[in-house]
């Protein structure tokens, strides 16, 4: 049984201080979509409180309301027992609330100092403000392990440091309540541990912390209490010590979830793709991929693990024909690929390389295009869609799309609906159906389940395994370690544009991979 702590259920000890945050009856609708329904939440002072839920469960909306980004349609907010009207971020800051956003709210070309004082300047001229902030940062660094060079340009800092700047911004504004939205998505496990130490330190100083995440491991590791959201509602609030990951997962989804993928051992065949010394240089002249070599065999899933931004995107782009390589070679079934030119994705498809891109919004789909137009995007020049005089056969495309939507259970099953109007999971299924049904020899897959609900995740994982079982070669890039471990037959880890190590899934675990993701090979250093 889950011991649900409701407002009434909480023991009303007269002496104990009022909760840092008390939300009651919060509702918010965007058009016809009810993002938050009658939400109640109590967070005790000096605790770390987790909020978990699937994509679209309403976590971010709720926190945005608390931070004054949106105004709730209904409901009441009390901060430290005082009813508080939060109309904008200014009000939230005044109430002692600070927020670390999932996508950092930093000005990239500014220095750390400039970012910290932005909006909290002391006068019309910058000089005194900068001087004051400089000494404040020294103090904060000492108190909370938050060292950052105050004169560094934020855009040139590593992601972990940028996150520290976000935390410093909040602390500089003397925030007592700190909200962190998916803070570990861009961190290595080691960096995440460092962050958690900082959070523990903050808690020890009496700060209240709200941690929004979809990673149950983190909830179990650091929070005192945890709330679960589902479909805009707060379904439960429990003490972390009294729950388990599987129970939380069930609360999130509303049914029992298989956290494992059913798959038989791989039986790899011939080598389909050989990658040798592959390098890519970015637009700004900075190397993105540094001399990568690996083999990809028929009937195997090769997982590529790593923190986002360590060369995985460049790898997918160069293999998918979006980027050119600066050095190195790739052969497909013994035939060399021409890597010298960017924008050759069409040729790659002809050769039998499919590509499910990391970012379906930016690359994989044309959002204003209807489903049927998207269902052949990239293969629109296939002979079956052509008519004479350069015209295309819209009807053939429509029929083709109907079939895909049926076989991949894409809902709503309306090929005339625009891609933008499908849920994340169904959008991903459109891309997946398109790339899988072309029967590629090699399929490149990036972040197959990002922003996808749990039900669709299971389906997508099954499709990937089924494709492998047909003898296809699959290169799977994912920042989710669980996904990599569950699906891969072999794992390579990327760090700083290079391969930092290779593992078999049964011979490794999250700690081992986590160290590789930080560029440290524990086995080498042990030897």
């Amino acid at each position, binding site marked *: 049984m889950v011991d649900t702590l409701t407002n009434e259920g909480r023991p009303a000890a007269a002496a104990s201080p009022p909760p840092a945050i008390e939300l009651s009856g919060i509702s918010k609708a965007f058009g016809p979509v009810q993002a938050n329904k009658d939400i109640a939440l109590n967070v005790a002072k000096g605790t770390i409180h987790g909020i978990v839920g699937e994509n679209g469960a309403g976590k971010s909306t709720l926190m945005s309301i608390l931070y004054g*980004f949106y105004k709730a349609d209904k409901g009441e907010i009390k901060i430290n027992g005082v009813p508080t009207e939060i109309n904008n971020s200014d009000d939230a*800051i005044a109430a002692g609330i600070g927020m670390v956003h999932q996508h950092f709210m*930093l000005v990239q070309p500014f220095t750390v100092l400039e970012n910290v*004082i932005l*909006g909290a300047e002391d006068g019309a001229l*910058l*000089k005194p*403000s900068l001087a004051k902030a400089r000494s404040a940062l020294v103090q904060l660094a000492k108190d909370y392990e938050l060292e950052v060079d105050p004169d560094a340009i934020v855009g040139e800092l590593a992601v972990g440091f940028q996150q520290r700047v976000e935390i410093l*911004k909040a602390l500089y504004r003397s925030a007592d309540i700190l909200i962190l939205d998916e803070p570990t998505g861009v961190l290595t496990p080691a960096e995440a541990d460092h962050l958690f130490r900082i959070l523990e330190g903050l808690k020890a100083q009496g700060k209240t912390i709200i941690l929004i995440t979809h990673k149950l491991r983190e909830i179990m590791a650091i929070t005192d209490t945890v709330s679960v959201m589902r479909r805009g509602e707060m379904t439960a609030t429990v003490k972390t010590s009294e729950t388990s990951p599987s129970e939380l997962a069930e609360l999130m989804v509303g049914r029992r979830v298989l956290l494992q993928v059913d798959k038989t051992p791989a039986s790899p065949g011939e080598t389909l793709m050989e990658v040798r010394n592959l390098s890519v240089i970015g637009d700004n002249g900075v190397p993105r991929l540094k001399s990568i070599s690996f083999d990809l065999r028929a009937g195997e899933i090769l997982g590529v693990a790593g923190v986002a931004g360590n060369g995985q995107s460049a790898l997918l782009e160069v293999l998918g024909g979006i980027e050119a390589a600066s050095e190195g070679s790739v052969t497909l079934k013994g035939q060399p690929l021409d890597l010298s030119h960017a924008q050759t994705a069409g040729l790659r498809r002809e050769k039998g390389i499919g590509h499910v891109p990391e970012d379906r919004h930016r690359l994989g789909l044309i959002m204003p295009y209807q489903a049927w137009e998207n269902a052949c995007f990239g293969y629109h020049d296939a002979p079956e869609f052509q008519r004479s005089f350069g015209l295309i056969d819209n009807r053939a495309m429509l029929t083709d799309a109907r079939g895909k939507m049926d076989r991949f259970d894409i809902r709503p099953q309306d090929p005339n609906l625009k891609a933008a109007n499908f849920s994340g999971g169904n959008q991903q299924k459109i891309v997946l159906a398109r790339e899988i049904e072309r029967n590629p020899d090699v399929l490149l897959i990036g972040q197959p389940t990002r922003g996808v609900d749990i039900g669709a995740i299971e389906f997508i994982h099954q499709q990937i395994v089924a494709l492998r079982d047909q003898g296809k070669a699959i290169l799977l890039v994912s920042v989710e370690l669980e996904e990599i471990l569950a699906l891969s037959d072999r794992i390579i880890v990327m760090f700083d544009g290079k391969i930092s190590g290779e593992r078999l899934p049964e011979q490794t675990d999250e700690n081992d991979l986590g160290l590789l993701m930080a560029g440290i090979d524990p086995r080498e250093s042990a030897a």
Partner: protein
Amino acid sequence: MEWVDVLRLFDSTLRLATPLLLACLAGLFSERAGIFDIGLEGKMLAAAFASAAVAAWAAAPALENPFPGEISGLGLGWTAALLGVLAGLAASMLLSLLHGLASITLRGNQLISGVAINFLAAGLTVLIAQDLFSRGGQTPQLTGGARFTEITLPLAETLRGIPFIGPLYADVLSGHVIFIYIALLAVPVSWWILFRTRFGLRLRAVGENPGAVDTAGISVTRQRYAAVLICGVLCGLAGAYLSMGTSAAGFGRDMTAGRGFIALAALIFAKWRPWSALGACLLFGLLQAISGYYPKIDLGIFVIPSDFMEALPYILTVVILAGFVGKATPPKAGGVPYVKER
């Protein structure tokens, strides 16, 4: 080429660079705050008209019974010119507000809004000029109190004797209307505002990442409107200079002749930096001065036609945009309306 010709060319460069520089700095403030402004041209044109019209009216003598076509004005002295400038600023700022309404409040397309403002200015100025003065869309010639006189800088005559620097000071820098000095002064002032004040910090931030500004508790909308209004003031000065400070001495149809667009090209060339903007505008001014001084260049076997020399500033604008800009990175949030993300 004689030394005197060089001095005259530089003098002319300064005059021709002034409207470009004012417009370029106007664009700088707007685009640094993330609002693209292709409507500099229209704002200048509107200001040129409004200032000339008001100055002409204010300077004209008050008449009991004016003949048709005659204007009965206020009969003011030098204050007429001042009133004219204020009217120019008002006209330009009004169009700025319109651009702000379209691109900030209503999140419309900034390019299209700018284009519309250019046409609006082109149509309305002539329409109103015709309605008021019935002179084929022109204002009357500005005379007396309606004009700005040239200022001789202190010690110009005394220093003339010093070789090289003396003539440069006395013949090139000295002896211009006030607008030219305002424009030159606007460069360090803009730099100081943008990089040394709280206002400038916020303005630049809003052009790079409005989300960061919003979450810091500052209104993106207010910050952007402020930038757009400054843009209006500077465009207003540029326009007022064209109709009141140059030998044109009055408004004529389409008198801006693409300067607003050349200023935009200069802005890109200057990579959105004030001091570089000065350099870029002086370069464009020099090009215009050269094409103005040498309508036909006789190369012996071949005469470069005057049409080519007249087209030269436009051609060179394209050449500079194409070849010498290198990788110019505009403010990241430029041209994109700010919408709080869901």
